[in-house]
């Protein structure tokens, strides 16, 4: 009896194991069904990946539901990721498993790295057959997604960086006209600084730092001009505001990013972007704020933040992916995005942007002066290096000068 039990138990274990391994190794055949054979009348399933807000998801879902009107042979699925990091971390595994999205929405801040690493398909040969009219978009928006003469993305939004001021704090401090230069910002920040509030929050993040260096005529030029005199001046201004005690980092106050500090009334001014509108609506619904272009250092220039749709090089049906991405730029979807603050790259809609977002009207001139980030090809490494060097001085009591910091970063990206 004992032996029979042993034998039975052992055999049962073996059977379980075989089933478990068989289940692990089986291919997801369900995924293969209904896959692309674009243009032959069979339904093609295209998956779009993005990371963003619940509002974004709602707009995308609605767009996905209407795709069959334009492309009857395409079914569009939307896949939301919690963050860009989460997406990039899971992507290799998803590619290996054959479940990666076909196209994604990506920001221009960092896209150059992925393009140069060959993760996306060039669209030039796909645009014509897919029936995409790139003339619907502003040429400046198209150019953001053009690398070495090849088009890698279809524009979705385009918007210049902005400067936000807490209107109540400004008025309470008895300050007059709003600032147009960093010197004026610095003077105002000193006045606005109290025991509990700092004049300005400066997030030690490449997006914000780049705004400063650009306003002094600088920029990164894909790593060629990291330690340029203009960039040094931009960084020097950040250092000066920290030194005189009128600036603070979100981290020092225990916050994650600048928007949280601003919304909680811990700082009166900050650089930011169109996403502040949606964020402040929820986080500080009663706050009155003013939106201005990024102040001048020596010139009018700032970041141009843009979203675009890029097709992954391993997409099963690239043409269908391009068509689905193009569908996302239809006027109804674009109008919905404009309502939540995104600037439209469509020639037909961009003039309406400031009608729908009157609070952003002051930044209209910046559409002509703002430029792409132009980080080095190893963007993440560059951003980490820059942030680490700055944190080491501003949060760690280091004594490097802006020139020394930028020289050190430049050394890594010769």
């Amino acid at each position, binding site marked *: 009896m004992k*032996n029979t039990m*042993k*034998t039975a138990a*052992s055999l049962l*274990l*073996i059977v*379980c*194991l075989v089933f*478990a*391994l068989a289940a*692990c190794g089986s291919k997801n055949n369900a995924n293969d069904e209904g896959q692309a054979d674009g243009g032959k009348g069979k339904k093609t399933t295209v998956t779009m990946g993005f990371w963003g807000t619940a509002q974004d998801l709602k707009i995308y879902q609605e767009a996905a539901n209407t795709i069959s009107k334009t492309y009857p042979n395409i079914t569009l699925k939307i896949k939301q990721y919690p963050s860009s*990091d989460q997406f*990039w*971390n899971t*992507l*290799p595994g998803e590619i290996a498993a054959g479940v990666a999205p076909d196209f994604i929405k990506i920001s221009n801040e960092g896209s150059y790295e*992925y393009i140069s*690493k*060959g*993760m996306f398909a060039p669209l030039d040969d796909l645009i014509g057959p897919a029936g995409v009219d790139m003339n619907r978009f502003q040429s400046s928006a198209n150019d953001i997604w053009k690398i070495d003469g090849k088009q890698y993305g279809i524009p979705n939004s385009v918007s210049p960086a902005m400067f936000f001021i807490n209107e109540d704090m400004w008025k309470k401090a008895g300050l007059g006209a709003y600032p147009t230069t960093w010197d004026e910002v610095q003077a105002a920040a000193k006045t606005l600084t109290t025991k509990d509030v700092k004049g300005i929050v400066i*997030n*030690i*993040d490449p997006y914000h730092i780049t705004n400063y260096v650009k306003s002094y005529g600088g920029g990164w030029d894909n790593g060629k001009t990291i330690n340029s005199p203009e960039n040094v001046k931009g960084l020097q201004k950040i250092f000066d505001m920290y030194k005189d005690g009128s600036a603070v*980092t*979100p*981290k*020092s*106050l*225990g916050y*994650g*990013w600048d928007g949280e500090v601003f919304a909680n009334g811990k700082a009166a001014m900050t650089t930011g972007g169109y996403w502040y509108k949606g964020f402040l609506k929820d986080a500080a619904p009663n706050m009155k704020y003013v939106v201005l272009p990024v102040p001048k250092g020596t010139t009018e220039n700032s970041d141009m933040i843009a979203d675009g749709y890029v097709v992954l090089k391993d997409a099963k049906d690239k043409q269908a992916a391009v068509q689905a991405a193009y569908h996302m730029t239809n006027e109804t979807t674009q109008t919905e995005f404009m309502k939540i603050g995104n600037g439209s790259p469509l020639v037909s809609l961009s003039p309406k942007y400031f009608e729908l977002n009157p609070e952003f009207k002051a930044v209209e001139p910046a559409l002509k002066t703002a430029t792409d980030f132009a980080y080095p090809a*190893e963007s*993440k*490494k560059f*951003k*980490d290096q820059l*942030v*680490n*060097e700055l*944190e*080491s001085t501003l*949060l*760690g*009591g*280091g004594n490097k000068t802006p020139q020394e910091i930028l020289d050190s970063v430049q050394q890594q990206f010769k």
Partner: protein
Amino acid sequence: MSNGTKAAAELRRDNKGGQSLFRKMFDSDMSVGWLFSLPFLILWAWWFFYPFLQSFIRSFQDANFAALDEAKFIGFQNYVRILQDPEFYRAVLHSLEIVLIAVPVQTLIGLLMAILVNQKIKGKGIFRTVFFIPYITSQIAITTVFMMLFKQGTFVTEFFGLFGFGNVTWFADTNYALMFVAILFIFQQCGFTMIVYLSGLQEVPKDLYEAGQIDGASKWAQFRYITVPFLKPITFFIVSVATILGFQIFDQIAAISRYGALGSPAGATNTVVTYFYQHGIRYMNIGYGSAAVVLFFLIIMIITYLQKKLLDEKG
């Protein structure tokens, strides 16, 4: 006996022999033991050994995560580059600091907690539960709560200020961030240590204490000469596990680095694991990252071996 009958008898004997071999196989405790271990061994080989083998092979390649099919064999170049990178040594130092601070402290606190809840006191079940809760709580959740507690101007930072610590946001200050990570680790790990020690304490024969009492041994002497030697294998287990977990600490660092560079502020919390993650995953240089992992494995193996040696010698 005819030839036919002989052959039939041999066949029967063979069949009988075959049956008994099968029976013998399953009658042996050793075989059954192996069979019961087999599912784990196969899954372990599939989920741990095979990936490690792949990492080992990748460590000799120039491999981009996004284009693994284009990987090139480059010999020991990744290892040479890592060993020439000062950031790697800084990461190793940070990992060692966490382990050297957190492991002894959490072992000691866990032991004290186990002794406490092993006493005949009222509500010891509640104490056991309360002490164990941090271990089963999400690391991110605990880190988030601690981040709120260790902000500049809170009662916690003001309290530490009484002992000469700065009233600053700990996780944003390069001087305190690593200590903050170590505190998080200690807080979370103590519950597990307590449970393991508790099981060990309950195994110590009561008659040894009784004999000690008859011989006039003080409480301290009983603890020193009865409890501690009995807990030695458990201590080795706890120290080994805590050391490995201390080296592997990641979630807490990722949480405090949110919206910034991993290992923030200024790389003050960069450890061997974050170094691997940064290079292998974030920068997509999986060959270089894999080499860091192999070195990391060697470091842990050497330290665990030394720990065992040390405990053996002491015992």
